[in-house]
């Protein structure tokens, strides 16, 4: 079997505090995997390690059979919406063009082939009417679609998304997830999310991350898994409220939103 991600004995600490420890993961290609867990549990850190943005303190990571640094150009990254600078003057077209960056160096004029790829990605995300609109004038859902288009413009084989539905309204979320499901036919997808309805409808496996990683090769969420990911104490720490009878569960975020960049 070909693996998109192979992680062994991974440790990562930040300023002396251990963020991830003893992480193992073998994720086959073609999966639509969800990464769940509490804020500060190391989800974003894990994605950044897989993208080569951060380097592990020990252990090994292989992405598409090679190092994260080498694989990064085959990976698409949709960071949290809060990452980018809101007042930065840039149109949707120029934003998505960033995805073609390595082709543009030294060229004052953009080549037609790159323009076509960018327009394709914009069209795929249903943003064609907004090509020339400034990114800071978009709604949360539109901005999210533009960010996904930017990741797709680099023609990735694996797509990492960090809470892509956080600032999107409910109908927008459904559209977004349908597009992702379609994309999953062509690429492996890893998505950080707190929204467990996403998980029960769309994904093929779940990784629960809370300093350690627990990988489940089924799309079903069990009480046990949620406890592993979010901890058992219902008060103060655990954001989970189990609604209705059994599955699906809904995760109601009670966390202080200021520690979003975990």
């Amino acid at each position, binding site marked *: 079997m070909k693996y998109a991600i192979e992680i062994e004995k991974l440790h990562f600490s930040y300023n002396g505090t251990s963020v991830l420890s003893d992480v193992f993961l073998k994720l086959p290609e073609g999966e639509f995997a969800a990464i769940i867990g509490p804020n500060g549990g190391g989800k974003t850190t894990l994605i950044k390690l897989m*993208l080569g943005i951060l380097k592990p303190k020990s252990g090994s990571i292989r992405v598409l059979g090679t190092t994260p640094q080498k694989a990064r150009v085959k990976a698409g990254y949709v960071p949290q919406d809060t990452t980018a600078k809101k007042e930065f003057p840039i149109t949707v077209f120029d934003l998505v063009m*960033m*995805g073609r960056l390595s082709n543009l160096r030294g060229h*004052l004029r953009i080549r037609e082939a790159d323009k076509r790829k960018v327009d394709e990605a914009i069209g795929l995300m249903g943003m064609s009417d907004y090509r020339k609109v400034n990114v800071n004038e978009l709604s949360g859902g539109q901005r999210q679609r533009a960010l996904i288009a930017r990741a797709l413009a680099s023609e990735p084989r694996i797509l990492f998304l960090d809470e892509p539905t956080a600032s999107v309204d409910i109908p927008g979320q459904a559209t977004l997830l349908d597009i992702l499901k379609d994309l999953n036919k062509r690429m492996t997808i890893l998505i950080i999310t707190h929204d467990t309805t996403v998980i029960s409808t769309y994904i093929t496996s779940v990784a629960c991350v809370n300093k350690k990683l627990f990988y489940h090769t089924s799309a079903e969420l069990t009480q046990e898994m949620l406890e592993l990911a979010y901890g058992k104490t219902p008060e103060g720490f655990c954001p989970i409220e189990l609604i209705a009878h059994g599955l699906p569960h809904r995760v109601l975020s009670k966390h202080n939103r200021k520690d979003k960049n975990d």
Partner: protein
Amino acid sequence: MIEALQLGFMKNALWAGLLTSIACGIIGTLVVVNRIVFISGGIAHSTFGGIGLAVFFGFSPIFGALGFALAVAMILAAITVKRKERMDALIGVLWAVGMALGVILIDITPGYNVDLMSYLFGSILAIPSSDIYLMLVVDIIILGLVGYFYRDIMAMAYDEEFAFTVGAPVVVLNFVLLGMIALATVMIIRLVGLILVIALLSIPPYISENHTGSLLGMILLSIILSLIFTAVGLWLSFGYNLSSGATIIMVAAVGFVLDFLYRSIKHKMAKGAL
């Protein structure tokens, strides 16, 4: 003003103003969108250490300033890679230590006779032709580098981590960017002095940011604004016998306030119309 233009030093001053405005518009824009105005301030002030060294060892202060600014810029770029979270404190240290070093070196230089004020507050009216050529070279270097890496620089300014994932040479470009800031800073020191550099770097791009939809537009508008501030400042300083550097900055400040008033009135009117 017509007769002023016929004076040789005034001609040089205007050329210097034009060449500096080009560097200022480009580098100022990059400084503002990357939010590293404080880094530029650090580089500018620490440059005084280089001027002190040059005075002490008896070589040209402009090269002392240039060498020192580049060295400080490279140190800061290295810190950016390793310990970004401690950056502000370290900038503060380099800022003050550079100046202190300059003051002490000038103190102990026998028969010191350099016009200190011209480095602190600029001396655009005393710029020799040789400096004009140096400015031209700096402009060409900056235009070449920014032109070649334009998309990388834009992507990095917007989101450095994403830029890395699509293959931007993030570490190298941090050195390049700070190196260009050092070059531009030394150039602007001739115009308005090392204390006032940050104002001329940041005011034009800050105004432009609200009136353009792209980085390139912001750069072009900043160059034009910087040129207007410099020309009007020069004219006023010549007509009323004021310090040129400070007058240029005050003109820029007036521009800043006018733009602020214009935008708040426009905002209020737009609200009223709804």
